[in-house]
């Protein structure tokens, strides 16, 4: 995994907010916390498919806008009484630029 792909700049995502990367395999939600940590997870709540990027971000967690499930952005695990998991993706931030691994956005053409 030596070639990372740039998806945008940290300062184009609001603090305690998220924006999406559209890929052939669906949307990846990229979050920026209050202290500028960046996380990438599937933009789809495992409960009822809610768009997690639209949720309220607090600490390193997000609350789904549909039915208030809360996910830890670093592990993807549902918090509290709910049980479930959302897929997380590796991100790399270099000088304010955000990179993800190429397999997420490319589809092999064999």
């Amino acid at each position: 995994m030596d070639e990372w792909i740039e998806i945008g700049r940290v300062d184009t995502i609001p603090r305690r907010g998220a924006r999406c990367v559209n890929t052939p395999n669906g949307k990846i939600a990229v979050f920026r916390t209050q202290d500028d940590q960046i996380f990438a997870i599937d933009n789809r709540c495992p409960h009822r498919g809610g768009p997690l990027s639209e949720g309220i971000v607090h600490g390193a967690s997000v609350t789904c806008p549909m039915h208030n499930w809360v996910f830890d952005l670093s592990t993807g695990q549902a918090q509290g009484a709910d049980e479930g998991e959302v897929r997380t993706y590796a991100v790399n931030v270099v000088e304010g630029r955000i990179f993800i691994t190429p397999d997420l956005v490319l589809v092999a053409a064999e």
Partner: protein
Amino acid sequence: MSERLVIVGNGMAPGRMLEHLFEAAPGRFEVTIFNAEPRVNYNRLMLSPVLSGEKSYAEIITHGDEWYAEHGVTLHKSAPVTQIDRAAKRVQSRNGLVAEYDHLVIATGSSPFIPPVPGHQLAGVVTYRDLDDVDKMLAAGRGSSIVVIGGGLLGLEAAAGLKLRGMDVTVLHLASTLMERQLDPAAGYLLEKAFVDRGVRVITQANTKQVLGQDRVEGVELSDGTVIACSMVVMAVGIRPASALAKESGLAVNRGIVVDDQMRTDDPHIFALGECAEHRGICYGLVAPLYEMGQVLASTLVGVPASYQGSVTSTKLKVTGIDLFSAGDFGEGEDREEIVLRDASAGIYKRLVLKDDRIIGAVLYGETSDGPWFFDLLKRGVDTREMRDTLVFGQAYQGGTPLDPMAAVAALPDEAEICGCNGVCKGKITSTITGKGLTGLDGVRAHTKASASCGSCTHLVEQLLHLTLGAGYNPAAVQPMCGCTEYGHDDVRRLIIAKGLKSIPAVMQELEWKTSCGCAKCRPALNYYLVSDWPGEYEDDGQSRFINERVHANIQKDGTYSVVPRMWGGMTNPKELRAIADVADKFAIPAVKVTGGQRIDLLGVKKEDLPGVWADLNAAGMVSGAAYAKGLRTVKTCVGSDWCRFGTQDSTGLGIRIEKFMWGAWTPAKLKLAVSGCPRNCAEATCKDIGVICVDSGYDIHFAGAAGLDIKGTELLCHANTEDEALEIIVALTQLYREQGRYLERIYKWAKRVGTPSILANVVDDRDKRRAYYERFVYSQQFAQVDPWQERVNGKDAHEFAALAEFGMPVAAE
């Protein structure tokens, strides 16, 4: 391939069985449910609090629609099954739906038994079984006379509920004391006295001869000639297993559908459980046995050996203020002894029936906290010789010295049952509190189901919380806003003003928030409080708003949005309608709907299209209708004196004036208004947050109505003589609510909390105070009346409406 499981009936027994099944074998079964009722699964035990008005239907739902979706269950509502084809393994419903099964579960429950006295088929004779029955009873209305036939558990709960609803209630009971199957005559007498004290008339040894009336009920005649006039008769003499379908299908049926210890009928592919089943000659009508059956059946279906051995049941009457517990057998007999405690002035009666030094029956009236302890001794067959002298005083008195009630709970063994409805024992509750780090009743209910059904064990669960958490549990304390703080909403609002806190970080710092940046509960609340308290100074924090308020549209289940432009007072014109039609065409908007608030909703708009849609609507002069806002929504009007021959005032004009004055204002929860031009009230003003009824002499101002989760007519606040006065009062009332309301607290809940007198004192009786509230609202509006759509059309928050990056077509990766 998954196995096809078809369930006939959607009551509490199959609901619980499915919970066990999905836990044991998720995904293994493809489940189809046929429900005769037009709704989801709800807690039937709690119908009595719904009848009495202490709870709403929404509060007693066990499985909402989303639960069925989540587990891939097909639920057919209003679809009673009429035929089982056992050879083809197929069922068919009355409305023609067909399903094939590998396993069939019959859970048709029971039907109320209606004694075939003359007149029993008249309109106005109802039973007490489901939510429809509750609605029918409530339709009788305050002050009407109702006769309840049957003085058992169900009849008495119905009588108590109807009495609380302000009806005149008579209970007729055939035996000489009430609840004679669960209570001995002494307790039955005390119970009768308690009902009489509440104003319910009780006639025992009442043999109903006939129900009187021509087309509908007019009265009841007893065999001794007594006639009781009434407009409704509630039949609550008993239930019988609903086994007709099974019988027609050729299954073995006695009173109920005969099942073995695995809940299997005589057809190996068909099971029965719940009130319709007959196990070892017994049909059960209480919830605990049904839950035990559900557990056994779930195990059987997944192939785990399990066996139902029958149940010993206990009974509690769910009438607020009457404490009653009974269990086991309390008939007198040669080989039995009894211990009785009576305290007439305190209204306490306790009786234990013993055989061979073991408790076989217990009746407690007036003080029932030792019920679970006696029941535990009974079920375990404990030899009580050693504690005989103090047994009846209860667990606290064992071991010589009286202990406090907490010690009694502490002394219970881990396997002692705390929640009879759900079969949850003490050890399960305490270990879950510790294991899951629970801090309150809600957590225990969510994780163990204890106290989540009838609620009568709530105080025991609270004592266990106390015991397990020590000083960390304080139920009397103010409910904190959320887990991030100890402060309640009112304290936070007070301190924001007192300490001059003008940003979310300032609040969190000064009030010692426990989290770094709050949570999804406290942040939107704080944002509202700051917006409301510091107009012009506080900068709104979009990231602390719920998505709908952040993007000024309503998110839908598929992630698209709905867009509702304002139509002032519900008035529109060809230009606006054309613009809406053009926008719908241009952006291929899939659905256009007229709303209940007299506007038009465009549904299914893609997020990235929102600015384009808004730009076109703005160009036609329309602004956001704030249909997503905890703020002013609509002012609904009728056509009033402009057009209507009954109209007394210009209700449309006043509605438009109010809406133009108040739009853009944020409030603790959504705010819906209406103005009707005459008391015929075509704008339905009397179920709104604030409603105006125009009359010849001016304007009656109503408030605190509700027509959502709760239904509540408005209260009359006052009369205004002129439009100007009406507007000033409405605005002042709104400002008072803005300043005092807790986030998400609708106006009727706020009014109930603070009391109408304090509202009258601020906005009606004292002209100067009213004016001050009015002026604070006016000041705040200069910062609030900015169309959020136009701002975004002009580029605000552009990042919201575009992706961070697009990787469109598949790309070769060598």
